[in-house]
Every structure is written in C-alpha cells, then in structure tokens.
C-alpha cells in the first residue's frame, strides 16, 4: 500500500516536471529535432524545395567528395578561416581581459564598450561599415594615403578579402573576453603574492599561474569559438558574398547558395550533415587533447 502511493507520487512528480519544461521540450522537438530528422532524410534525396523529393541514396555525398570542386574550395576557405581567426581572437580576448582585470576607476564602462562589437557583430550594419572601412574609397585607404601608400579595395581583392573577414571576427572578441574575465577573477590572489615573494617576473607568473589556472576557460572558449567559426555565415554573405572567385566561400554560404539560389535542397542537407560531422570531429579532438593541457583544481592537480 505504501509502496503504491510512493509510485504514484513519483509518477506525478515526473508529470509535473515534464509539464514545466514542456514549452522548451515542444520547441526542441518541433524546431530542432524535427527539422534535423527531415534534413537527414532530404540529404538522401533530390529535392528542389518545391516539388516532392525523390530518393537517390548516397549520391549527394558521393558527388560532394568526388565531383565538386567548390565543396573542396569551401572546406579550404573555412579551415583557413577557423584556424586563422580562432587563435587570434582568443589571444586578443585574453589580452583585453587581462587589461580589464584591475580595479581602476571606470573599468566597468570600458568592459561594456568593448563588448558592443560582438553584439553588433552579425548585423547588417557592421557589414556595411566594414565595406566602407575596407572598400576602395574606405577609411583605411585614406589613412594609408597619408603615408603615401596606395591601397586597394580590400574586401574585393582575391588576396586580402579573407583576411579582412578574419579581422572582423577577431574584432568581435567580446563574449570570450567576458568569459576570460570571469576566469581571471576566480584565480586566487595568494598564488600571485606567493610567486611575487619568490621573485617570479610578471611574464613567468602569467605562464605558470594564469595560463594553467585559466585552462578550463580557454578550453571552453576554444570549443565554442571553433564551432562558431565553422558555422560562420553572415560575414562572408553580407560583405563579400563568397567572392571574389570563391576566395571567401564559407561552408555555410555555399550551403545556403545550393539551397536557396540553385534550389538544390537535398544536396544542401547533405552538406549540412557533413558540416555537423566536421564540427563533431573537431570538438572530439579538442576534448581528447584536453586531458594533456587542461588543469582542474578539483581533480587534485591532474
């Protein structure tokens, strides 16, 4: 008798719990899981968005790797972009975070100001500003002109377009900076005091205290930024539209073009799943490597 009652109450607790997360659950199932399953199905079909899909098995995936030079180009561009922008962005974010990790007056205001670029980051307005800054008659060329250097149109130059986009992303260092800042604040001051007493230089302190103590935060930022980097879309789409000559053809831009400009939704779905696998693979690699460089205090120094 008593047991039965317990069971019932357990069930009703479950129901209450599920009821409370229902709004999220429905959203998750309807807007994330559902479309994912649909796109997995579409990736095995020839689907032009408007007429019914026809099943073609693995053909999309085979074409991708054997007969699509633009897919390879998109991969190449995306890898350069990720490996170029992520380390630079993290280094810059850490640098700025350390500048702000003081108790000087007005530092709160600066923290807010420096966070603004990453809020604006994906927006159309910034893309327009970037074009104006790095265009042929942009502000950058005006500055260079003072020194007698003749600039080019940076955003449309095949040699510099991608670097311009990397620069934009590095400039949007706000959110990793905030996380670094929180991490820096959590490092106990005694460690630095002890090191200073022992005569360690600031550089040595950074190397031996800050970096190891911050490694879980670096790890987190690295994972998040890498995934974000692979999925980057707005910068290329709005500023260079993948051009010139596919030099800034981000993976996501290519995917979008296939889906909505060429009506090849099946192929685009297949591209999306390959992107998911790539993201998963790199995240796994980072996790695997973490054992050798991430330091958790709670695990007793291992």
């Amino acid at each position, binding site marked *: 008798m008593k047991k039965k009652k317990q069971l019932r109450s357990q069930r009703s607790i479950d129901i209450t719990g599920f009821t409370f997360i229902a709004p999220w659950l429905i959203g998750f199932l309807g807007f994330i899981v559902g479309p994912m399953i649909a796109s997995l199905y579409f990736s095995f079909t020839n689907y032009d968005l408007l007429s019914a899909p026809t099943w073609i098995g693995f053909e999309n995936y085979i074409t991708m790797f054997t007969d699509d030079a633009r897919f390879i180009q998109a991969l190449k561009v995306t890898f350069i972009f990720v490996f170029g922008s992520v380390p630079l962005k993290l280094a810059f974010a850490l640098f700025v975070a350390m500048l702000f990790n003081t108790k000087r007056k007005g530092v709160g205001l600066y923290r807010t100001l420096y966070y603004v670029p990453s809020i604006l980051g994906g927006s159309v307005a910034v893309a327009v500003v970037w074009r104006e800054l790095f265009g042929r008659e942009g502000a950058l060329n005006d500055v260079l002109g003072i020194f007698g250097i003749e600039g080019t149109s940076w*955003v449309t130059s095949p040699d510099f377009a991608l670097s311009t986009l990397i620069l934009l992303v590095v400039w949007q260092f706000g959110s990793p900076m905030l996380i670094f800042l929180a991490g820096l604040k959590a490092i106990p001051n005694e460690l630095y005091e002890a090191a200073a007493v022992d005569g360690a230089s600031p550089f040595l302190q950074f190397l031996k205290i800050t970096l190891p103590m911050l490694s879980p935060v670096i790890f987190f930022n690295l994972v998040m930024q890498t995934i974000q980097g692979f999925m980057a879309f707005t910068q290329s789409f709005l500023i260079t539209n993948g051009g*010139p*000559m596919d030099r800034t053809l981000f993976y996501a831009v290519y995917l979008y073009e296939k889906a909505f400009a060429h009506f090849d939704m099946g192929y685009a779905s297949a591209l999306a799943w390959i992107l998911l696998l790539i993201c998963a693979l790199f995240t796994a690699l980072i996790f695997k490597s973490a054992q050798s460089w991430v330091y958790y205090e709670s695990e007793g120094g291992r």
Partner: protein
Amino acid sequence: MWKKRKSFLFLLMLGLIVIFVSACSSEGEDVASDSGNDAGETENNGDTADNGEEQIELRILWWGSQNRHDRTLEVIDMYMEENPNVTISPEFTGWDGYWEKMATQAAGGNLPDIVQMDYAYLTEYVGRDLLVDLNPFVEDGTLDLSDVEDVYMDGGKIDDSLYAVNLGANVHGTVYDPALFEEAGVEPPEPGYTYEDVQSFAKELSDNLDGAYGVQPSVGTNTLRHYLRQNGVSLYAPDGKSLGYEDDQLLVDFLQNTVDMIESGAAAPPDVFMDAGSNVEQQPIVNGDTAMLLDIYSNQLVAIESAAGRPLELMLNPALEGGEPGHFLKPSQFFSVTKDSKHQEEAAKFISYFTNNLEANEVLNAERGVPIAGAVRDHLRDKLDDAGKKMFDYVEMAQDHAKPIDPPDPQGATEVETLYVREVEEPIYYGQVTPEEAAANFREKANEILAKNE
C-alpha cells in the same frame, strides 16, 4: 489543498500545450486548404469580387534602386487612396539577395501576391508551378492589356499562357560620360563603332584623363549574350540541354578583348569596379572614375544619371565587323501573380492600374523601362525629363539594330550563371586564368549542369 492547487497548475499547463499544439495544426490545415484553393481558383475569385468592400491585403515584392523604391511606394499610396478597401504592404530589396528571398518564401508557401519577375527566372518559376496564368483576367477585363502590342507581351508568355506582365521595354547597351570624352579630346562613339574602336579610344581616354580610366570592362553574361548573338548563336541551346555555341574560340575571343584592355590600361582594373557589385548607383562612372560603362540596360539610365547628377549618354553595344545585329527588345522586368495569393483578381487589378494609369506612370517616370501601353507612352513622351527622353530615343534607335529575343533561359540557368561569374568572369578580371582555360572549363561544367534537364 496543496494537491488541488497542483492539479490546477497541471491542468493549466495542459491547456497551454493544447492551445500551442492546436495552433500548430491549424497552421497545417491552412496550408492544406491553400493548395485546395489552387484547384478551385476561379470560384474563389468570384467570391472576393462579390464582397468588394471586404478589407483586402496585398503583398508586393520588387527589387531595384532607391529611385525605384521611392517611385513605386508613391504609386502604391495613390492606389490605396483610390481603393480604400485595399491595403498593400510593400517589400523591396536590391537585386542582390532578391532571388534567395523569393525562394525562401516560395518554399514556405508564403509568396507575396505580386512579385517582380525577371526574364532569366521566368521558366524556373513557371516550371515549378508557382505563377498564375493571367489570361482569364485579361479575358474578363480585370487586367486591361488592350492598348499593348504583342511584341511587348511575348516575353511573358510560355506556351501561350501569360505568366508575367512586362513593366517596361529595355535594350542592353553602354553608357558614357560626354564631359570626360570632351576633357580627353576623344570623339564619343557613334552607332556602328566596333570592338576594335573601343580598344583604341579607351586607351586614349585613359592616357589623356587624370585619375580616370577609359572604360569599365564587362565580360558578364549580358555582354556575352550580345556577342554570341552577333555571331549568330546564343548562350543556351534551344532544348536547354547544353550551351548554344559549338566553338570555344568565340568565348576565347570575347574574353581576350577584355584581357587586352585591362593589360593595356584602357580598362579599369577590377578593384575599381568590383566594390559596386550590381548596384547601379555605385558604378565608378557615377564618380567619374571611368568614362564609359559597357554593361547597362537602358532603363537603368534613369537611376545612374540621377546618382551621378550630370548628363550621361546611352549608346549601342559595339558592333562586330561582318556580324549580325545583337540587340533585342527585352522585357525589363515583369509583375507576376503567385499561386500563394488569395486575392489573385485584386492583384491583377493592381497590375492593370500600374500598366495603364497615366498619373501613376507619371510618377513611375518609365524608370522600369519604356512603358508597354501605347497611351502611356504617348502621354509620357512630352513630360519626360532628359534621362527618360534619352531612354525612349535609345530604345527606338536600337530597334534598327535588333533581332528577336532568345527563348527564356532553361532550368539550371541560375547555376550556370553562378559558375560563369565565379570561374570565368571574376578570374578573367583578376588575370587568374587564360581565356582558353576559362572557356574550356566553362563548357565542361555548364554542359554538366544543363545535361540534367530532361
């Protein structure tokens, strides 16, 4: 007590879920009944006509320059004033991104009632059954085209069904800045000037002008089509399964011409003009950075001249010695009514107003090309500003150098265009491929795409 409250909460949540889910499913029903509407179109339209006082909302989508946005918005306001029961909500963008926007809405079954359509995309949209045949509305007089000659309507017809109403006639051409020609002491081009002439006067312009180039070159598809037509072939084969020309040397010669001009300094290098993209108002000729632009449609003169703020002149494309005439009368753009529209008759009524109303066309000022209705043309001719007059005269003159238009592009043409831009046009500007490589590569990949057409 506590238990009661809990079960009340539970019921409340359940209720919310039910509302949420049913909202979703009723959305689904809407979609289903929409497709039902398509079948019973005519009945449905009868209904809307009966209760004309009912508030009707139309959505309309177009691409264009700021100049066009302002004019079109004004006409929409005029129409709403005359028809208080109709509310029109406009959506507009530039050419870049327009077709992506359309495709997304098409996939969602959410296309605006009226969309601006381009000749290059017409087959693609008709082939996917997204546009409405307007002939019934022409027959019952809702869409009044009695004042329009066939030559202006034919571009919008596929298999005798009228899917799109031409908004203006256009001819491809070039535009030059007479002041810069005079400054350089170079005679402006006259009809009949050749590709060789361009080479020489462009070089002279570049040499004589301080800080400006002779021409902004173009190896885009518009100029390519023209060149191919001059050679008696077209870009796509009539069956749409392959390219329309056999000899790669044609494309090689065409590209080489531009490569030579960029190398000699006659033409502006790409970093001067790539910034502007397809945005007419930012082309370097507007700032006086080049004296001539080799790729423009006649209707764009209105926008480009107003952006430049000084007179510019339209001129024919260069002639090919011993070649055929390459020009053609092109529908600049169309209005089409989409299958997703619930008020197709009202949409047709608006298009009729847009085509025939004299005051509306005074506001529109032929910015979309020479109007197709005879009365409107006659009415406008005296009232036009200089840019409009030049455009009318140019379209008239170009008719003497024209032959009939090529059939609409086959399906897959948009993909071929992307291929051409990425692997022929841009690399040629930047000197990254030779014309021979580009031509061979283009043939191979374009034919592969077109071969998918059954």
